[in-house]
């Protein structure tokens, strides 16, 4: 076999393998357990047996890098960290294992809500969390905090280039029925709940509506809005603002800050029709065998220094009074949306799992995305 032939046959083998798995490389897959799992070495064998070990799962880089090390040093509890890229991924894992295998999991509120309704979460006993007194009182008004301890929170709104947009957008209609100058320079989020949110709120409906007639109107409005969009974008919308490709985008408050960090002319506004309240939270799966250690971990995360790290590095708001009161003026001036007070956030609607209506939601999303082809 000569060299070119050998090359070709080798390549075709690869090609077969590749075509079998399509574009799987794009999926933000969970890093393999071997690669991602960091087992903290125990300070001593004796401590290990008395204090035990917990397994937590979080998004990558969503807490201080040295948190686990310090926690173990202080409490003697060993922590094994697994990572997940999306809520859907970790929920899939937990549902498949009926909640086994993890002691503390970070996830977004509406997913925690669904997990709690499936009976997979243990109810939180706040008396076991002394640091929970740091949490804003408003937190208790969010139904799913019975099962989930808030870590960060925020809302969704309009993020725009104040230097290139010559008026102040303040309505979802600025996004859905844009002025001529903004046509083709707008992006919307593509994850279903946030794709639907602007139209649900603009029409005065609940962000958790399960009414078919209302969803019909939502669909029609979104199909119209699609014609004036540049793109649906969940991941790079703020860089599109920075480059000037887009002038107005639907954005999560924290992500708008990533744009502001690169261009101070970028602004964030909560539309006057209202928006959602999202909460990223910590939950304890019901089957966890080391709940005491899980509580110790959550209590540690509620310390002000952890929240301060999150606000300064992730640029998200933290539902922690002790943190928000002492952020530097510099930070608050640069990233104005960090100053949105809890009362203002609580006026927005917490996203909840819509249960059976999910199939209605996905068919509306599919029809919107497939329209105009």
């Amino acid at each position, binding site marked *: 076999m000569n060299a070119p032939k050998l090359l070709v046959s080798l*390549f075709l083998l690869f090609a077969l393998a590749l075509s079998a798995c399509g*574009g799987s490389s794009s999926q933000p897959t969970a890093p393999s357990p071997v690669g991602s799992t960091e087992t903290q070495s125990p300070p001593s064998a004796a401590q290990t047996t008395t204090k035990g070990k917990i397994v937590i799962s979080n998004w990558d880089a969503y807490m201080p890098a040295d948190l686990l090390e310090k926690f173990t040093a202080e409490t003697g509890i060993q922590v094994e960290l697994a990572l997940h890229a999306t809520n859907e991924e970790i929920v899939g894992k937990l549902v498949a294992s009926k909640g086994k295998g993890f002691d503390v999991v970070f996830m977004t509120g509406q997913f925690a809500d669904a997990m709690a*309704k499936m009976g997979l979460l243990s109810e939180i006993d706040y008396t076991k969390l002394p640091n929970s007194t740091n949490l804003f009182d408003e937190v208790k008004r969010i139904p799913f905090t019975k099962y989930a301890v808030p870590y960060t929170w925020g809302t969704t709104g309009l993020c725009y280039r104040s230097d290139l947009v010559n008026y102040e957008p303040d309505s979802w209609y600025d996004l859905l029925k844009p002025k001529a100058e903004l046509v083709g320079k707008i992006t919307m989020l593509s994850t279903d709940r946030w794709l639907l949110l602007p139209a649900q709120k603009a029409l005065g409906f609940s962000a958790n509506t399960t009414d078919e007639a209302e969803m019909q109107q939502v669909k029609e409005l979104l199909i119209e809005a699609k014609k004036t969009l540049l*793109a649906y974008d969940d991941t790079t919308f703020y860089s599109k603002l920075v*480059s000037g490709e887009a002038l107005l985008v639907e954005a999560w408050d924290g992500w708008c800050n990533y744009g502001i960090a690169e261009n101070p002319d970028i602004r964030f506004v909560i539309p006057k029709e209202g928006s959602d309240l999202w909460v990223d939270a910590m939950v304890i799966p019901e089957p966890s065998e080391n709940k005491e250690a899980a509580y110790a971990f959550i209590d540690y995360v509620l310390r002000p220094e952890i929240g301060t790290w999150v606000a300064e590095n992730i640029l998200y708001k933290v539902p922690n009074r002790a943190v928000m009161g002492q952020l530097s003026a510099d930070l608050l001036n640069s990233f104005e949306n960090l100053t949105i007070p809890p009362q203002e956030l609580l006026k927005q609607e917490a996203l909840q799992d819509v249960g059976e209506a999910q199939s209605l939601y996905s068919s509306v999303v599919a029809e919107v995305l497939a329209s105009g082809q």
Partner: protein
Amino acid sequence: MKKLVSPLVLLGPALTWLGIFLVLPLALIFVYSFFQRGAFGQIVPQFTLGNYMRLFNPTVLKVFLNSLRIASLVTVLALLLGYPTAYFITQQSARWKNTLLVLVILPFWTSYLIRTYAWIVLLNREGVLSRLLISLGLSREPISFLYNDTAIFIGLLYGYLPFMVLPLYSSIERLNPELREASFDLGATPLKTFLQVTLPLTLRGVVTGAIFVFVPSLGNFFVPELLGGGQRFMIGNMINNQFLKARDWPYGSAMAFGVMAIVLILLLFQAWITRRTEQS
């Protein structure tokens, strides 16, 4: 005994691998496709044909047809570009052949996803191409080449062209040059020689290449999402959404099997063509 052992030793590892990582997951997905979604996204083991019935709703059919259209067009374009390329490579000296083939394979050293992001850098409004056109005076306004069907064609064609070139190369390479010479000697024009000698004898390569391009184009979801701006919805996106966003695994599984049925029909067609060309 010896006769039985050696195939087992030789094929054992590969068969185990395929069994665990291909057949088993496929079987799981097949079973899921007859189950129901629970209210909170669980998989409820209750038999239903409902997931398959839902494939016949107009939106799904539209997305299916649209994906078929895009994948077919990409395949035709890949063939039109790939055939002359492969033919050219076979005409070079052995050393050049090697170099050219390595060049064809070279892009695979980087992830397709990253190369797709690179296209965004090239094609966006403030991108390399747009700036180049302005500085050459060919355009006054920045132009975006992204977020439309053309961008999706470019992304898919770019990604899968090597899959067309290589099978074509190997089948053209295998063609005995004397057959073409004989055709010329008997007075056939170059066009006639190509159509009646070269093309029929390399049909296997054409069909193989076409399938290698068509199948992954049909299932691709990140090119429409990134270069199409998520506005062009292909069947891959739809399946991806069912699994990752709607958490409706049974429905997603049924869609995946719908795509697989199409692919299977194509593979049968390929087998039939192969057998026919081998007989003649």
